């Protein structure tokens, strides 16, 4: 993997790796004689100016679906992507940089923790962030509850708020693949509601003080530049339920502007 990446040679010092239409890390590999074999995606036109003052990003040309950015500040490579799922291009980009001995955020272990609910909540709770109590089950679940799958095919985007037994049976059958896998449940107090919020390098737009504070702490823990925080809101109390990926297309104008400011070096990390 290392040799592939070294050959891409696109990363600029303290600059931004341009967002490829196909993922910037796809460079070249070498054949057994060390001869480089070109990749179709090796030549990637730069979109961002290095240390640009004006954001050269127009809505239609940047923050494209599935695009991935690397921002380097103070020797740290920040990987910005809509998701960081295991075995995806962003995950392998992180892994490649780690194997090269570079400082990279988020780390590969961090993204695994973030998307595995029990680990995410254990880490969050230990950092003083109010987090939902959780349990693992394969059949039974005390209601009302919020349910997440815990297997190779599940994502934190798919959660189910369950209040009755009939629905519970159906959902449990679905998320356990007919009892094959365990699942994670959390208590969902009566009168609660789900509250989501997007955090960009730990910053939020329009969130209340408590949520904004949690977002910063969560960034401090996992170092994920773009993430959706899912809380259970009971009265005025927020408890963390999960972290999940978010699409660029789902960002508000303010959130897009904030992310673009980071990408164009206007906002310092």
């Amino acid at each position: 993997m290392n040799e592939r990446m070294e050959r891409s040679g696109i990363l600029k010092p303290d600059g931004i790796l341009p967002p490829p239409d196909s993922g910037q890390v796809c460079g070249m590999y070498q054949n057994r004689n060390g001869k480089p074999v070109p990749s179709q995606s090796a030549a990637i036109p730069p979109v961002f100016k290095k240390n640009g003052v004006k954001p050269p990003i127009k809505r239609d040309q940047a923050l494209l679906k599935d695009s991935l950015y690397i921002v380097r500040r103070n020797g740290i490579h920040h990987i910005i992507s809509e998701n960081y799922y295991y075995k995806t291009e962003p995950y392998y980009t992180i892994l490649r940089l780690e194997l090269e001995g570079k400082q990279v955020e988020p780390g590969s272990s961090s993204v695994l923790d973030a998307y595995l609910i029990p680990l995410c909540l254990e880490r969050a709770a230990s950092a003083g962030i109010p987090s939902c109590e959780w349990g693992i089950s394969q059949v039974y679940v005390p209601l009302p509850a919020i349910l997440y799958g815990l297997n190779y095919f599940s994502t934190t985007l798919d959660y189910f708020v369950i209040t009755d037994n009939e629905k519970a049976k159906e959902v449990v059958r679905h998320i356990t693949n007919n009892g094959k896998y365990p699942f994670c449940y959390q208590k969902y107090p009566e009168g609660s509601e789900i509250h989501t919020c997007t955090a960009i390098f730990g910053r939020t737009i329009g969130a209340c003080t408590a949520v904004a504070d949690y977002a910063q702490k969560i960034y401090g823990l996992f170092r994920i530049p773009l993430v959706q925080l899912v809380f259970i809101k009971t009265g005025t109390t927020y408890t963390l339920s999960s972290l999940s990926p978010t699409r660029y297309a789902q960002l508000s104008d303010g959130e897009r502007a904030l992310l673009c400011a980071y990408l164009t070096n206007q906002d310092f990390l």
Partner: protein
Amino acid sequence: MSRLGIFVDRKTLSNSEQLNALIRCRDVAEELGHDVDFIFPVDINKIRRMDALFIRARTDPMNITYVAARMAEFHGIPVIDDPESIQICSDKINMYSHLKKKHVSIPETVFLSKHDLTVEHVAHLFDDLGSPLVVKEPSTSFSLRVEKVHDVAEFFKVARRFIKMSDWIVVQQFIESRYDWRVGVLDGKLLYACKYTIPSVTFKIQASVNGHLVYCGVESVPPERVPPGIIQLGTDAGNAIGKGLYGVDIKNNNGDACVIEVNDNPSLESGEDTQYPLVYEKIVSYLFAK
């Protein structure tokens, strides 16, 4: 008295060999003076009350075993398999990268991104690595999602299936052999060695042939009958991953030995350790010495 947790799931208990192996492990730990608890996924919160954890279930960073390993780590509890070993060994891109980094001999290997899947690219691969090629989805285990392909068309048929599960896949030179060495490594040292004899109807250690599962033969081999180069390569490969428990698969074709893969959570229920009666004692002692 120290408490050993053995993390299992329903699948671990799906046949008598696995169950017997677990009972053997429990008996050994008890003879060494430890209490033993079997821990199922629903009991995961018990992990924090253990003094050591031994995971005996199929590991993957996306399943409950990884949660168990990380939970143990959070609470400072020694664990086999440790989370890092699970993360590395469950993903062949990660695993081969570690082996390459430490210059451990492996077959010629290329990682292919979904963006590199072009006819030109693939034709180059056949030119460079020869035919047939072996295509692997990175999180394959028990030879699942490992296919031998002979031409570009066959390659694409397989690769398109695998790329749905991973943005990168592994392409490898095919190395023929009648058997694989399996070198068990614990803490960087030889734990056991055996031969996996490949069934003549397949090139994998386990395969479905005409709807029937075909398993490899297992022959435990005492250390004095294992070529020293194989032991050295096995321990080098284990050390390239970490200090845990690994099963290193090695092909020794015409004296050119190379590592095919390093497995965390290696099988111990099929007679791999027949010639090594102290395997469980060493594992349990290692965990409590950490």
